[in-house]
């Protein structure tokens, strides 16, 4: 199920990939167009709305030309929360994986907290961080934290013993072994964690922006729903889908370059 852009993205593959969405679009159009009233707006209406959101000039209402503002707000929270999660989870995971004392201190607690879904943290986040972007940021952080942590711990614990022996005989001190062996050897697992974490960050952003923030794609989805502007809701969904897809592609590209030494990743 690996997605590949570039060399393997032949024309026939692009056409095949577009076939099902095109059919879906056609069905959507047939089911919603030329009717007096439809709860779900037809695709053309959504396209016009998206245009208005992006550059304005159609409806000139509160949403017009606001897409960039909302997108940047969401991007900031997604990548901010994700980056903070990575910065905390990778070192912590390396320590949990290799230092028994740290493992005994943190592992039971983290295992206990892990099954609690991000949605359940929402009320507590509001109490701790108040209504606003801090809560959204925190929820995104929480959502991407566990996949990064778990995969880092897994990677670090599965470094071949042989590589430690090789490093020791070549004169690497036991502190330097962390950077020279543990980190590079577990990079494929860490990367899997980062990819999953970023995916979850996009899932969580809508919940995160239910915390009463004014801007963000999640925020306009929630607000437009209350105002029965379903076409705006759909625009928000499509935008999140595209951004999530693009950011995954960027991470994969980075991964393929960083892990070009790994037979599983080339």
């Amino acid at each position, binding site marked *: 199920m690996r997605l590949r852009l570039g060399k393997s993205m032949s024309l026939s593959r692009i056409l095949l990939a577009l076939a099902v969405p095109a059919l879906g679009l056609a069905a959507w159009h047939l089911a919603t167009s030329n009717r007096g009233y439809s709860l779900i707006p037809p695709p053309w209406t959504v396209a016009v709305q998206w245009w208005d959101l992006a550059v304005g000039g159609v409806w000139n209402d509160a949403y017009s030309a606001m897409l960039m503002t909302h997108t940047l707000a969401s991007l900031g929270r997604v990548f901010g929360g994700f980056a903070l999660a990575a910065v905390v989870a990778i070192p912590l995971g390396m320590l949990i994986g290799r230092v028994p004392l740290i493992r005994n201190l943190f592992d039971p607690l983290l295992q206990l907290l892990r099954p609690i879904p991000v949605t359940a943290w929402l009320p507590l986040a509001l109490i701790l961080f108040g209504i606003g972007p801090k809560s959204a940021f925190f929820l995104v952080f929480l959502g991407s934290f566990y996949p990064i942590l778990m995969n880092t711990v897994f990677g670090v614990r599965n470094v*071949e013993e*042989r*590589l430690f*022996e*090789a*490093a*020791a*005989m*070549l*004169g*690497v001190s036991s502190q*330097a072994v962390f950077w*020279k*062996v543990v980190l*590079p*050897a577990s*990079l494929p697992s860490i990367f899997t964690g980062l990819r999953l974490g970023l995916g979850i960050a996009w899932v969580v952003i809508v919940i995160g922006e239910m915390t009463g923030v004014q801007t963000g794609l999640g925020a306009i989805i929630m607000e437009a729903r209350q105002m029965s502007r379903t076409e705006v809701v759909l625009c928000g969904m499509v935008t999140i889908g595209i951004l999530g897809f693009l950011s995954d592609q960027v991470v994969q590209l980075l991964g393929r370059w960083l892990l*070009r*030494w*790994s*037979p599983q990743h080339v």
Partner: protein
Amino acid sequence: MFDRQMQPILDASHLTKQFVMRGEAVTALADANLRICKGEFVCLIGPSGCGKSTLLRMIAGFETVTEGSLLMWGAPIAGPGQNRGMVFQDYGLFPWLTVRQNIAFGPAASGLSRSVVAATADRFVRMVGLEAFADAYPHQLSGGMKQRVAIARVLANDAEVVLMDEPFGALDAMTRERLQEELLDLWAKSKLTVIFVTHAIEEAILLADRVVVMSPRPGRIIADEKIELLRPRDPTSPEFNALRRHLSGLLGGAH
């Protein structure tokens, strides 16, 4: 047997190793006595489970001594060190480093300057004939090439003693012969001391100055034979065959 004047580079006396497995002690090596002089090429031979790897890993410093003593240049071996390098059967290369970077790993870890590290790496890349693959990653190499990198890595690190645990066991016959020749060549040009584990009698006679024969349960040394044949040795010669029969007899016809 050996020159009393000369201090042995390695000296094992009454060396014993026990592992504890599920509460039970397993004696992997019992009362081994072995002195090896600088520059010697020693083969350890014996059936599976006789403690060859254990002895080698103790010399490398990967395993502790249970009883007896194990000295290098008169000082007890306390752990892995740069004066001893191991060549593993499964290579043990760092998969995220290129051939050149793998070979440069030891010199870089000992804090030499960049230019010295680069020059050393280049020299040993050339020595094992991998110039064309210097920037390839281990997964792009054949088994024989990987083992050349592993040997170069140890030599680049300036090891005095090269420990080899069935290094050519996973290679095809032709590659194995090539590497045996190359190894003898490298050894002859240097002052290296080589301890080479194998379970192939022919390989031992082909390579070694001395063949140390071991037997299992518990692992111990049962014979220590000098091989006086001139190199290059001819495996089809009558002298070679006589030695083969002799060692085969010592191993109890298991081979």
